[in-house]
Every structure is written in C-alpha cells, then in structure tokens.
C-alpha cells in the first residue's frame, strides 16, 4: 500500500473526479481555504461562533452506569448531541458557510441524509443571511419529517430527490448536478468528510474541534489520554473529527463502527470499509459498495445518516493501514443500544451514535478495568423517535424496563 500522502490524496484514496465544469470551483475553494487558514482572524471568527452560538465546548460526560453495566473500562461520552441543532454537523457548516461568505458566494446548497446536516446548513445560512437549498432523498424526507420541518422553519427550501434509491447518495448526485449549473455564485456545503478534494480535508479540519477538545478534556477529567475512542461511521465526519487529533498517539486505539443493517451477509448494510471495494463515487476514490460491474449498490441502515454506500477517503486509508479498527453493528443492535443508553444515562442518542454504543460495551470489556474509553455521542435521537417507536421496544429491553 502506497503511504505517500499528497494534498487531496490519502494513500491511494481521495482525488478529484468531477466534471470539468466543477474543476475551477474546486481549485478556487482549495485556494480560498488555504488563505483562510493562514488568516488568524478567520480561525478566531469560527471559534467565536462555535463558542457563542453552537455552545462549544461540548462536555465530556462520565457514563457511570454504563461503566458499571459493562464492567470494563471507564466510559466517557463526548456530547456532540449537546451542540446546537443536536449533532456534530454544525461544526462543519459554520466553518463552510463562513468560508463561502469570505469567497463572496451568494447562495448555499447542501445534501442531507438524516437531515442533521441539512438542519445544520439551514441554521448557518439563517445565522449569516444566505439563501439555502437542501437536497434530500424522498425516502429520507419521509423518515425524517421532524428535520424537514426544522429546515423549512429555518427558511431553507427542501427538494425531495426521487431518483435511484431515494436516499443520501442520490441527494448528493442531485446536489452536484445542481451545483454544476450554478457554479458561479453558489457554494456546495458537503456534509461529510467525503467528496472531491478539498472537501474531505476541509470537513475533517472543521470537525477536528471534537478530538482537540477531547484531548484537553480527558487530561483534566481523568489525567491521561483515552485508551480507546469509538465513533460511528457514515461518510465519516464525526469519526474523523474525533479520531484525527489522536492518529499520532499510538497508544490510543481508534475504532469506527459501520452500519451492519440487516447483517453483513444480507446484502443490506452500509459497511463500505468492511465490505466495500475500491471505486470512485461522488468525486473521490475510496471504498464503496458496488457490484462487479461498477454500479453503486444501495446501502441500508435503520439510521438515515449511515445509509451511504461510500466513505471518506481518509478513513478508507486509515482503515486499510490498520490505524483505525473497523467494526459493524446491525439495526437491531443499534436499537437495543439506543434503549440501553436512554435508560442508563438519561440520554437519547441518535440512531447513528447508537451504532457506536452498540460496540462500545465489548470494547470496554476488552480494554478492562482501569482503562478509559471515550464514545462519540455524535447526535441526539429526537429526530429518530418516529422510526424507533414504529419498531417497538426490543424484548430484552422490555423486560428490564418494565
């Protein structure tokens, strides 16, 4: 495996596979971002908005009852569910919308799966006074009606995308198609650490605030870096955000959890790192779920935010080189974990985050007593209550809770 990492390349992965019409816009974005990074006032502006508006830093909360229940490492939760709008997605949209303003863009478009990124983009647009158009798969519009309402209330226009599997990947196709036609005055806010260069880098940088906070918070809370960190992986933005600042810390185990859906042999899952093959989707070379003919397969997950057949190129690289350990959790395991966290910690985690919780118990036991485990609680579960209620309470949980 090639380990040389060029800008926009993570080993073999990454790059910029886009129509020629979009190339100059990506070059412009790359340049504008590099300039913004050199300008201390931009960083300060982002930090100030994160502090005053988003409510950062988010807490690192001890999960005492889960620690007891699981009987292994001491468990701590990074509370991205307490960030304004209820998920980590806002860290990136604040940064990107401020960057778009700096570039003189007049309008914002975005794609969304669970709706959290759409809500976060609509929020940033409302805050900074830019019009916002959100593309969302028609199936996701149905299963995330609360977030559709929130986006509209915030002044965004929501377009239901009827093509393909009517989920996140199709919303992303549509947003790219629309962007090609509006390239001169529109910025496309990609919601995960995926897509063509420079998006994976930009999103990772804006999300790294999560991991940077964990570094200092863990030293204060338990006097050392965590022994392991676990996060769910859809496109990979919350995972790369919390994990990236620890890549050089060889003693910190980094674990990602993908959507196992109905099970890895069912063909219905979102486990692109575990079962994907190398391919090009949405402008970057990464691991994707595809058939032997190169057609992208429909992913499946109970959680709309993990229902994506691709993954960001940097995570693909980190997984292939073994720096990030990859596991999966099924829909049922995530549901069970959802109730376990609700009833033991008084927190309703997002279904996406519930995937991380579903594998965290084992990891805590593997690590053992005296070790420290941080779980990225990437978002809150309010948006998922209709989906969860429709499934009924799993039998094992019903007994304990009754």
């Amino acid at each position, binding site marked *: 495996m090639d380990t040389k990492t060029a800008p926009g390349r993570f080993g073999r992965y990454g790059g910029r596979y*886009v129509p020629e*019409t979009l190339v100059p816009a990506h070059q412009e974005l790359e340049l504008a971002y590099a300039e913004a990074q050199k300008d201390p006032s931009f960083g300060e502006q982002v930090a100030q908005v994160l502090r005053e508006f988003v409510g950062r830093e988010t807490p690192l909360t001890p999960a005492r009852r889960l620690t007891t229940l699981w009987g292994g490492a001491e468990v701590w939760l990074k509370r991205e569910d307490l960030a304004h709008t209820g998920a980590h997605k806002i860290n990136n949209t604040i940064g990107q919308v401020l960057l778009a303003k700096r570039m003189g863009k007049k309008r914002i478009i975005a794609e969304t799966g669970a709706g959290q990124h759409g809500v976060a983009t609509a929020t940033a647009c409302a805050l900074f006074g830019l019009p916002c158009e959100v593309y969302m798969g028609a199936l996701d519009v149905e299963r995330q009606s609360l977030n559709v309402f929130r986006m509209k209330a915030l002044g965004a226009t929501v377009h239901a995308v009827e093509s393909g599997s009517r989920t996140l990947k199709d919303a992303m*196709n549509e947003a790219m198609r629309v962007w090609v*036609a509006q390239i001169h005055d529109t910025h496309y806010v990609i919601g995960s650490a995926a897509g063509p260069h420079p998006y994976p880098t930009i999103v990772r940088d804006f999300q790294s605030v999560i991991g940077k906070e964990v570094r200092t918070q863990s030293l204060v809370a338990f006097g050392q870096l965590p022994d392991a960190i676990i996060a769910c992986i859809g496109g990979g933005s919350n995972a790369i955000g919390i994990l990236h600042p620890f890549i050089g810390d060889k003693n910190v185990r980094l674990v990602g959890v993908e959507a196992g859906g109905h099970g890895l042999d069912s063909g219905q899952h979102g486990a692109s790192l575990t079962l994907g093959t190398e391919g090009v989707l949405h402008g970057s070379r990464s691991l994707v779920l595809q058939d032997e003919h190169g057609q992208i397969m429909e992913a499946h997950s109970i959680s709309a935010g993990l229902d994506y057949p691709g993954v960001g190129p940097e995570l693909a690289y980190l997984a292939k080189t073994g720096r990030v350990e990859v596991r999966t959790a099924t829909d049922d395991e995530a549901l069970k974990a959802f109730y376990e966290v609700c009833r033991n910690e008084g927190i309703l985690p997002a279904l996406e985050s519930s995937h991380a919780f579903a594998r965290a118990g084992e990891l805590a036991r593997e690590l053992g007593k005296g070790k420290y485990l941080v779980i990225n609680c990437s978002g809150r579960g309010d948006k998922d209550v209709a989906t969860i209620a429709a499934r009924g309470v799993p039998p094992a949980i019903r007994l304990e809770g009754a």
Partner: protein
Amino acid sequence: MSGAIADAFARARARGEGALVAYAMAGDPDLPRSVDVFAACVEGGADILEIGVAFSDPIADGPVIQGASERALKAGSTLRRVLDEVVPAVRERCPQTPLVVMTYVNVIMALGEERYAKLARERGVSGTILPDLPPEESIDIRQAFDREGLELIPLCAPTTSPKRAESIAKDARGFVYCVSVAGVTGMRSQLPADLSERLELVRRVSPVPVVAGFGISSAEQARVVGAHADGVVVGSAIVRAAQADGPSAARQVCADIKRGLKR
C-alpha cells in the same frame, strides 16, 4: 492524428458539413433495440456514434439521460455486455461509423482500465469519454488507452480558463468535447452568447477537431454552433425521441440536425 475518428471528421468536411456525433444509451429500452437506435442515427446522417454505458450515479447528466441510465440498468446493461453484444452489432450494421464509448470512470475501473482498453479496441471502439475524469486524474488511464490506440477524448467547460483550455486541447486525442453550457446534459432553449469565442479559442490550439455538446437539440442551434466548431454532439434530444417514438424518431432528429450542419 490519423484514425477512424479523424477520417470521419475529414469526410464530413469534404462534403461541406459539420460532423454530427450522436449519443444514445446502450441498453435503452433493452440491448437489441438500442442497436436499432444507433443504426437509425447513422441512417439519419450521424458521422460518429457515442455509445452511452449506464452508471448508477451519473452526476454529469440531466433528467433525460439519467432516466435512460435507469432503464438500461434495469434491462441488464453492463459495460461487458455493451462490449460483447451492442458494439459488435452496431459495427456490423454501421461499418463506416467510428464508435466512442461514454461512461463514468468507476465503470471502467471496475473492469480494469487495461482490460477495458484492450477489449474496446478489439471490438472496434475508437475512443472513450469519461465526464468525471478531469486531466489531473487521467494520466494512468490515458497511458493505458494510448498503449491500445484507444483515444481518451477530453472535455472543456465554460468555466475552464483559456490557459487550462489550451493545455487540455494540446493534449487531446480524438476530438475535444466542448461543453456548451455550465450545467448537466439536457436540451436548452438558449445557448450562451460567448460559446462561439470559446470554440474558436480551443480550435486555434487543438491538433484535433473540436465539437460542442450539451443542450443542442435543433437544426438552428446546430447551424449557429456548427459555424464555430467541427461538429456537434446531440444526446438528450435523440434519447428522448427514441424513448417516445422509437428508432425512426431518432433518425429524424439526426436528419434535422444534419440539415443545420450543412455549410
């Protein structure tokens, strides 16, 4: 540059016409009937055929070709089957017409770029257009194609700077595909006012013919654009006509466009 594509442009020029590159989707509505559509395009006067190979996530295409992709995938179209079943059948019915494959980079990667280049060449394909492969990412694929003598046809866009357009044109194989509008494929009632200037600029530096495509659907548009290019690409108008009324409608669209390309 010699080869089937160059010859087809030269023949059209000798007749005092701009060349028509006709696009249709292999496998729409099914594999055999799409062969009829390609043959009908040539009967209507198409000089080069662009054989679309469906991809599940066609980010450069508008609704008409997107719809055709979905139908072709449902009908079981794959790159392998297009090379094995559609291309040889089209070759047999239109032995003089150069064939160019248009698809997305992932479809080629899945078969393997070297394997694809070899198979395509053996079956009689002259060139390939990959709308999501900008020059920066195309070096390896182009080398593999060059080794087989398969031409990787580059695209130029309205957003491409003159300097970049120049470097794209200088390196071009087959022809340069100038995208007429900043947008996805599909018919347009109006084409941008500065299109002719852009075409002339690319033409001045390009060693190979220059065509305009995206949005062109009428004889009048073909006439206006054809005055500044070596030819035009017509896709959505053919795909839509074929879907609505079958191969004869596709033939009619090509004949209309060809009328506009008479000089």
